[in-house]
């Protein structure tokens, strides 16, 4: 009887330890969805996602009218939390964009392409796109430059 009670306690202890471990582990490794939700609702000033671009402008130099220009930018999350690109806002209807992913894990990268059609444009053009993210700075500006002949 004593032996049985001791064994029961022994198993309960093991089960308790395992459950406690699971709780601790689950708290530490949140799901991707939880990370996104946390990042969304957290004050951007307090998040630890850090956005860095490989460059902030692409200059195509002299181009002819009616040309499609595509500038590629690499976005890196050099912070410790999920980086979320909330919005990409070109300031001209002549500019379209493609973003490979909106949620970028720490030390991961995404690619952003900005495409500009130079139809009906002439001279020096400088087209801006604003990127907003869940970082302390929140807003970033990218430029496509060209001289349309």
């Amino acid at each position, binding site marked *: 009887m004593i032996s049985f009670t001791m064994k029961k306690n022994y198993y309960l202890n093991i089960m308790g330890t395992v459950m406690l471990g699971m709780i601790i582990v689950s708290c530490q490794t949140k799901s991707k969805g939880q990370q996104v939700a946390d990042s969304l609702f957290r004050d951007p000033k307090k998040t630890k996602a850090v956005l860095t671009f490989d460059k902030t*402008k692409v200059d195509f130099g002299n181009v002819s009218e009616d040309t499609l220009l595509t500038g590629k930018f690499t976005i890196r999350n050099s912070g410790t939390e999920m980086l979320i690109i909330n919005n990409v*806002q070109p*300031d001209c209807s002549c500019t379209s964009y493609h973003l490979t992913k909106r949620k970028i894990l720490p030390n991961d990268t995404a690619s952003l392409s900005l495409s500009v059609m130079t139809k009906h444009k*002439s*001279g*020096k053009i400088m087209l*801006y796109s*604003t990127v*907003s993210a869940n970082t302390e*700075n*929140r*807003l970033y*500006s990218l*430029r496509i430059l060209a001289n349309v002949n």
Partner: protein
Amino acid sequence: MIELSWTISFNSNYLHLFHMKSIPYFLFSIVVCVVFGCKGPSVSYNESLVVNKTNLQYTKLKLDSLMLDSVNSSYVGDIALFNDNIFFIDKKFSYLYKFSSTGKFLNRYLGQGNGKDELPIKTVAYFSFLPNGRSIVIGPGWDCYIFDNNFKRVDGYQANWHLDVPKDVMLKEPDPERSQMYSFIYDGNIKASNDKILFPILSQHPKFNPTRKEYASKALALGEMSLDNGSVRTFGKFCPSYNHDFNSMVFCYSYPDWYENNNMVLTFAADPKLYIADEKFNIIETFGQAGRGMDTKYTNTTKLQDFKKNWFHQDAAKGHYTFLKYLKDQHLLFRGYHKSINEKTDGLQIYKNDVLIGDVDVPLGFKVAGYIKPYYYSSPYINEDKGEIKIYKMTL
């Protein structure tokens, strides 16, 4: 438009007298109508009013520069001076940054968002303080937002350009007197009083635009928007030199500013004179001297599709006036000009009352933004790659 208002005025007299059943008065009113009513007040640019006074005190000025503290910015924006502070409106991020007169960052206002202290637009087209300390922000679609002295949004509306005539009708039959025909000139400046803003306008109608010979004589040049309700009034004709030289219409716009006694002062981009006009656009005075070394052999095009391209070329290559700023407290009028493609400096004229007191060389693109004792400050020179916002300052 002014003629019409006078006709209405006399018609009111006519009705009043007709009610009195006084035939002689009625006939007299008809005569008055014919003699004066159809003519209306003078809207002509009377050459006899021209004043040419020069008392040059400034032919060289020393410019100092100051760098604004670094901020998170798109580096697209403009400077506004108010209450001894320098403000930088970031047109892409919709932030308004406040700096001391020495360039030290003090505070940040506005920003994109729907809160009372935010801007519900992604891009700012124009920003200006009003003399009473309020401020106005205009979006690219002419959505206007008024902020109080603490940058809390107190009013907002869409500008009303009175789009009363169906588009297809307007396309077939352009009417130069209608505000619907015009739009604000991109990259022009608004000049704010406490109850209205003043700005240059342009028609891009396929049948009525600056590539048409009749544009100079028939087009309206200015717009004015009520800050109470956003109603836009278009008025004011082009000055005579545009009628004489079709090619000058490549620079088909004016730079107006508020002057003394509710009058306005304006210069046209391709005309050496300065004009003071009252609220009904009666020209009260004409004065001014041409800038130095300006190449004014302009070329216009008769094809609308080529107009922009030609303008880009002429803008860089030819001489034209680039801004106008009247500082009421100092009674000084500043006018900038570009000389030609080979010149390494622009020109800046300074007028006191109607007398030219200064004509100096300044860096290309120089514009006077305002005055904080003891300095006159320029518009920003922005280096986006270095993240720098530089401002020139000078004393007189």
